[in-house]
């Protein structure tokens, strides 16, 4: 189904440039919604292995961070988040921030599924409903033109 037209679009058929813009934007957002949740999940797993972090006294905080950063899991998580940032930066070079940021929210559904299946966290039905509403919101945002600044066609 074609997304509804917005005030930034014309009634004419999308140009090749237009299609390229959509393709690049969606592929980069696709990378973001996979690497972001996986990175966050790995971070959560590594911090949970350490237990609750005490922020005071400072020596407790430092020793907790040393324990966290000596685990393989956190470095795997950081690698995923670096991939996420690269995809994010490239997406921001082709599309609006106010388009890319909300569209990447599809990752929240991914992280809830991963939280349940891998970390065995409990997710309430209302929580799932909230995620569904977030996804509905994202679908509205995805119906708008990805770029409204510069040379948007």
């Amino acid at each position: 189904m074609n997304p509804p037209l917005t005030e930034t679009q014309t009634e004419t058929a999308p140009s090749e440039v237009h299609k390229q813009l959509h393709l690049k934007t969606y592929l980069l957002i696709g990378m973001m919604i996979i690497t972001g949740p996986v990175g966050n999940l790995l971070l959560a797993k590594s911090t949970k292995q350490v237990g609750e972090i005490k922020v005071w006294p400072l020596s407790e905080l430092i020793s907790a961070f040393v324990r966290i950063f000596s685990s393989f899991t956190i470095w795997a998580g950081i690698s995923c988040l670096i991939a996420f940032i690269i995809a994010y930066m490239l997406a921001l070079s082709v599309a609006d921030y106010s388009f890319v940021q909300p569209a990447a929210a599809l990752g929240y559904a991914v992280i809830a599924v991963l939280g349940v299946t891998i970390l065995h966290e409990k997710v309430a039905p209302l929580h799932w409903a909230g995620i569904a509403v977030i996804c509905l919101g994202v679908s509205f945002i995805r119906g708008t033109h990805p770029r409204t600044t510069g040379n948007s066609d």
Partner: protein
Amino acid sequence: MTLEYILFILVIVVGTGGELCLGRAMKETGELKRLHPSDAMRLLGRALRVKWIWIGVAMMATAFFSLVTLLSFEEVSFVVPVTALSYLVGAVGGIFFLGERVSWQRWVGIGLVCIGVTMVVISR
């Protein structure tokens, strides 16, 4: 509880501010013309010379350490969706800091996202 709120604010406001700075840097750098690794690396190399990248990275690093601390005592499926409140901050920043036009359809989407986030918080 107060510490929890401070950490959430750091993650949402400072984190989104950092992302907006990245957005500003990428807009100044130019567009990725082809989805090719060499083009992507060249573009990212050029972006590293823009000051907004470094301001953004510093802000995002602050948000990152706050997130790591939060995740040590909160469930990931609660923490991460709550950070979606940054959509509101992001849309306002997109208009005033990046000069983007946020249509009514995008606002509806952002509103739905905020409702979804509230549901996630209530379900706790």
